[in-house]
């Protein structure tokens, strides 16, 4: 029986520090298309790291930003089905804009933290790592999209749906951050504390961004909120409203 020639295996992400980038010829294969970039970020993260580190990575960075934007749009559409109507276009726009702007806000501090930790990464390389983080998170969100859609169709509670999307976002972002840590580890920094502190800042910015561009799930008369709130206060308000709503429906039953 003829066996198909298999592509040489790339080392796992956990081997990032032990094995130098590009030591496996598979990692050096060019990433030509957007689809190839999406596949590489999932299956061969070290190949992405190699190309961000060694070649001129502008095309790859654009490809990953495009992946993040496209997947964000799709996931936003699914999130928008919960309320329907104008949220079908508002939610995708808000998710994509929020994702990209929060990345832009955090880019200067990521570069500074990278330098402070002793890593020799260039600004374009750091931008590439951030784009890969956003792309990987967004691609993973697409994986969750069918599940989210099923729940959207069958759930009425805004708070429950919010918690579900938050859970998916936490899982997707933690995989994105895992890629970022591994990418910086390949550059042999003196310390990783700075990158971990930055990760906390990034998570806080994204959580606040979700609140700043609300509503994403529910409906509102205005596109953006008129009242400014911190995300914890917003969550507590939502929880309070939900508990009051449940109490009223129980009383009716």
């Amino acid at each position, binding site marked *: 029986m003829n066996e198909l020639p298999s592509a040489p295996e790339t080392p796992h992400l956990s081997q990032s520090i032990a094995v130098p980038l590009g030591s496996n010829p598979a990692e050096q294969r060019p990433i030509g298309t957007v689809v190839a970039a999406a596949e590489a970020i999932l299956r061969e993260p070290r190949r992405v790291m190699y190309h961000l580190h060694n070649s001129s990575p502008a095309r790859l960075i654009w490809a990953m930003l495009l992946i993040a934007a496209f997947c964000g749009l799709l996931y936003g559409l699914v999130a928008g089905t919960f309320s329907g109507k104008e949220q079908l276009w508002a939610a995708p726009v808000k998710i994509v804009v929020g994702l990209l702007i929060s990345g*832009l*806000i*955090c880019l*200067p*501090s990521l*570069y*500074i933290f990278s*330098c*402070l930790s*002793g*890593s*020799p990464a260039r600004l374009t390389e750091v931008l590439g790592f951030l784009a890969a983080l956003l792309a990987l998170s967004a691609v993973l969100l697409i994986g969750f999209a069918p599940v989210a859609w099923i729940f959207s169709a069958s759930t009425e509670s805004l708070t429950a749906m919010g918690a579900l999307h938050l859970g998916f976002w936490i899982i997707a972002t933690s995989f994105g951050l895992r890629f970022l840590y591994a990418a910086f580890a390949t550059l042999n920094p003196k310390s990783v504390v700075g990158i971990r502190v930055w990760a906390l*800042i990034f998570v806080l*910015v994204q959580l*606040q*961004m979700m*609140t*700043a561009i609300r509503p994403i799930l529910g409906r509102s008369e205005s596109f953006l909120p008129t009242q*400014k*709130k*911190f995300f914890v206060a917003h969550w507590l308000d939502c929880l309070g409203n939900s508990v009051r709503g449940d109490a009223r429906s129980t009383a009716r039953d």
Partner: protein
Amino acid sequence: MEPRSATLSLSEMPVLLRGEAAPIHRWIDQWSNSRALCLVLMTIIGTALFGAAVGSWRDALQAGYTALKFPLLILLTTLGTALLNGMLAPLLGLNIRFSQSLLAVLLSFTIFAMIVGSFSPLMFFLIWNTPPMQSAQTATAYRSVLLVQVAIIAFAGIAANVRLLQLLEHLSGKRSVAFKILFAWLAANLFLGSQLCWIMRPFIGSPGLPVQFLRPDAFRGNFYEAVFYSITTLLSQKN
């Protein structure tokens, strides 16, 4: 024309942030006007961006004032303590020239400025999400802006001083000497810096007071008197 090694371009700033001892040692050894100018410019840009972000919560005018005052505070502190710092270094065991000590302090302030500058988009984002001045939560908003500002400045200060300590250790070859000089320089900078902060207030701008470049009583009293007065008032209230 100055040789290339004597200038400091933007692309060399990461070397400064990483604290690479050998090239920084070379920069310290050779005084260059263009390098000093580049460091001053980076300090001005970084601190002005952060100042604008901090002041923008109170008013656009306050943002402009703070963008002007924050770089001024840093540069005046550097210049005001330059002579003393230059004298303290040889007395504490590091025989460097005045220009070298000035450049070392300036380098650490440039690192500080680049860090706070990189946080300015985050600060703008925070201000954008903070309830405005006219709202009922003004006091909470003011305190949160103040807290975040202090946290960022503290982090940048610590990071800059760690790099300065590494540089001093490289120059002196002894950790104990480097520590002594760092503490002496820090004490001088903090002593003058606190008073300059007092004179140049407001930076964020208290919600109840008008937007001003300097308070009318800027040159009346000093920071330490105010701290002493606050402590005695607090103690007398308890009794």
